[in-house]
């Protein structure tokens, strides 16, 4: 049982590490702030969550207690906000953005107002 758990945790940890690695490659490869925010907000979150889960399995809930789920919860709560904050600021300050410069508006929106789109 213990060996199996250990193996599972090892695999999860490995995957988590790889995810983080790729996400970090993403922060290097992707062309602008907004895209990199994706890598940060999703990739790192998943990677960390995986790592933490692996650790939880490895240590067992006796030693680790509630702290690892709490940490995971924390990651879900904060990381997207962090990435959102970065993107939001870049958008506000009109930092250079790669790709289609125009903003696609929600055509189905009933309360759509054309003048309100360009901030």
């Amino acid at each position, binding site marked *: 049982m213990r060996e199996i758990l250990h193996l599972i945790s090892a695999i999860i940890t490995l995957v988590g590490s790889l995810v983080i690695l790729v996400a970090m490659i993403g922060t290097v490869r992707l062309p602008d702030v907004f895209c990199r925010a994706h890598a940060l907000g999703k990739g790192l979150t998943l990677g960390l969550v995986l790592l933490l889960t692996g650790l939880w399995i490895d240590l067992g809930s006796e030693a680790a*207690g509630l702290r690892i789920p709490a940490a995971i919860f*924390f990651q879900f*709560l*904060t990381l997207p*906000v962090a990435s959102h*904050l970065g993107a*939001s600021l870049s958008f506000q300050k009109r930092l250079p953005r790669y790709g289609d410069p125009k903003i696609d508006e929600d055509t189905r929106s009933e309360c759509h*107002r054309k003048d309100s789109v360009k*901030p």
Partner: protein
Amino acid sequence: MKIDDTIILRTIVSFLFYLINVFSLYLLVRGHNLPGGGFIGGLGCALSIILLSLAVGVESAQRTLRADPVRIAIVGLLCSLVSATLPVLVGAPFLNNYNVKLENVPLVGDLPIGTPLLFDIGVFLVVVGVTTKLIFVLARSLSGLTALEPSEWRRYAARLEGPIEERGARLDEVPLEMPIAEEPKEEPHP
């Protein structure tokens, strides 16, 4: 369309505020046996308040705290000092530890209650008070307020001192008679 760029932050932070506080209290209490303690707990608590002030503005954060952080810190210092002095009253050396052990407290484990914990609580309060005050004054000053609230002026400044943000009439234009026995007629503070 105006973008509201803080709403997500505000919401998350007001949520986190409680979480972090619980966490820091936890760290305070169990510091004697596992990593943690007054400093760490206090800093955590202080940071939650700072986070709040970043998200919702310094004034509302101050309102949340209600008390003047400096006073909190001073009370904390007093608390530690008292815990250090208590053993003297029973003839033990200064700062000797006096413990009552609570066993098997949920989530914390064995918890010795005694002068070390009181001491740690003092540390906690000091750290909270100090850190928040330091940040509050700068944050207030940046948001166009005076660094100290006018109600604090008499407590932390001499009568003829004015706020540093002030660039108005110079204080030296207030006439003074020597020797000075009574108060000046005009308050220099606007």
